[in-house]
């Protein structure tokens, strides 16, 4: 629940940020023109749009490469995170053996592991290195949130399942996993963004593989002082991030909308 409970219509939800964006862009365009800022320091929005229009075929290819790594990393993180969470809730032994290493992976900056991973997979498989690094970054929120969710099952409900002689499998499927759903979805929203960040950071550090992703386009544009193109690539990255977030938020509403306090809109 938000403290400020003034009603916000869906139209306003779109219109208000849009207006703000247009105002900022207008001021930006005007200031760049009025102060005569050189293009390689700060290009006006119009130059960015022009660059986007000219370079979009190559930028789209890069977008696709980054998107692919992001999605693959996200789904691998999702699968392994949920699997390990399920295992560690089943067995205390698994839990205490896994968690220290999971935390270690989480707190070690991905930039620092990158060279090591690169050596292990070999420089001819940079794609794999990128995927591994992005997965490492995206994995932890899924694991920790799902574990927490499965453990926060109501005690009486757990007793009820015991009373009716539920098997481990029934308890997992009908009680622990549904109870963990809101936590998992929260973890997925964080993890989706992290997968993208991981994919980009990894490309900065490890370089690009067979094709170049958006991160490499940014490096390349910077080297050539093609700043409008750099902004165009940046724009694509943030739009991609927003789309991922919106899709996951939509999934959350779809799955929790009918029952969970966070997603239910309350009438007054």
């Amino acid at each position, binding site marked *: 629940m938000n403290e400020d409970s003034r009603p916000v219509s869906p139209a306003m939800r779109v219109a208000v940020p849009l207006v703000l964006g247009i105002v900022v862009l207008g001021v930006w365009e005007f200031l760049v023109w009025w102060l005569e800022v050189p293009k390689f320091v700060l290009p006006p929005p119009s130059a960015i749009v022009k660059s986007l229009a000219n370079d979009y075929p190559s930028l789209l290819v890069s977008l696709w490469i980054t998107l692919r790594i992001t999605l693959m990393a996200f789904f691998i993180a999702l699968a392994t995170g949920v699997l390990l969470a399920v295992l560690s809730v089943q067995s205390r032994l698994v839990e205490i053996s896994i968690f220290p290493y999971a935390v270690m992976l989480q707190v070690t900056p991905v930039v620092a592991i990158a060279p090591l991973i690169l050596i292990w997979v070999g420089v001819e498989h940079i794609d794999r290195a990128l995927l591994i690094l992005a997965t490492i970054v995206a994995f932890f929120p899924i694991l920790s949130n799902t574990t927490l969710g499965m453990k926060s099952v*109501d005690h*009486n409900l757990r*007793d009820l399942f015991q*009373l*009716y002689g539920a098997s481990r499998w029934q308890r997992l499927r*009908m009680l622990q996993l*549904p109870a963990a759903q809101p936590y998992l979805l929260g973890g997925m929203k964080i993890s989706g963004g992290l997968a993208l960040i991981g994919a980009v950071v990894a490309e900065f550090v490890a370089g690009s593989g067979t094709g170049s992703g958006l991160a490499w386009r940014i490096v390349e544009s910077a080297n050539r002082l093609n700043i409008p193109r750099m902004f165009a690539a940046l724009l694509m990255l943030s739009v991609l991030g927003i789309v991922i977030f919106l899709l996951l938020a939509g999934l959350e509403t779809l799955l929790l909308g009918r029952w969970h306090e966070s997603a239910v809109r309350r009438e007054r």
Partner: protein
Amino acid sequence: MDGVDPNQVVNADAPALIRISGVGKRYSGGTHALQGIDLTVAQGEFLSLLGPSGCGKSTLLRLIAGLGEPSEGTIDWPRASYDAGGKPERSIGFVFQEPTLMPWATVFENVYLPLRLDGARRQTVAAQVEDAIEGVGLAGFAKAYPRQLSGGMRMRVSIARALVKRPKVLLMDEPFAALDEITRMRLNDDLLRLWAGRGWTVLFVTHSVYESVYLSSRIAVMGARPGHMRELITVDAPYPRDEPFRLSASYNEYCRITSASLRGAMGGVGHQP
């Protein structure tokens, strides 16, 4: 505690359903929750456990349900068959103080749960589930989610779930304590109506003297530190009971007796039950 006959039953012909003898419970934390509990629950009775909070009522109920083992003594089910592991086939329905529903599941799914855990297919038992929902006055709410229901309605769902397998014993742990007076009275009446003439047995935990007298054929008054049996009071008033009973002299008299007993259980300190 002179005059307490643990095996005294309402109806001498009614066979013993649960025989609790010498049961004590010490939690690993060191709490001595129960000591020397002797109690025989007769088939078909409505027995209330009444006592101040912390006297081990919930603990006793959970032990009866098989959620945890007594530290000493035994709980026998003389009429039940025992499975290969030596566990009695208890045939129990349990209602907690909170409705304890799965928030992600509809009313139907919640009531269906005990059958589902037995492996019964949805189609085969749909009518049975609908019956249970109707039985607690919630016809038409099968597709609703718990959060759309009032507290009283949620408690009704919880009762429907406890009854859907047609258990022999219904264990209820202060089921209506969190509800307002009016809802509680209505649920009391509905509970008596459901119980009437079905042959099942109710074990009802409460800390309300009035509720226990209104509902029960027998009241077991418990004392604390450690939890023990104080007195068994037989409420010798005919069923069905309804508003006239609540206003009758005998109801008042039973309330007075029970109150006094409860006050004794609390060590004589002035206390309004």
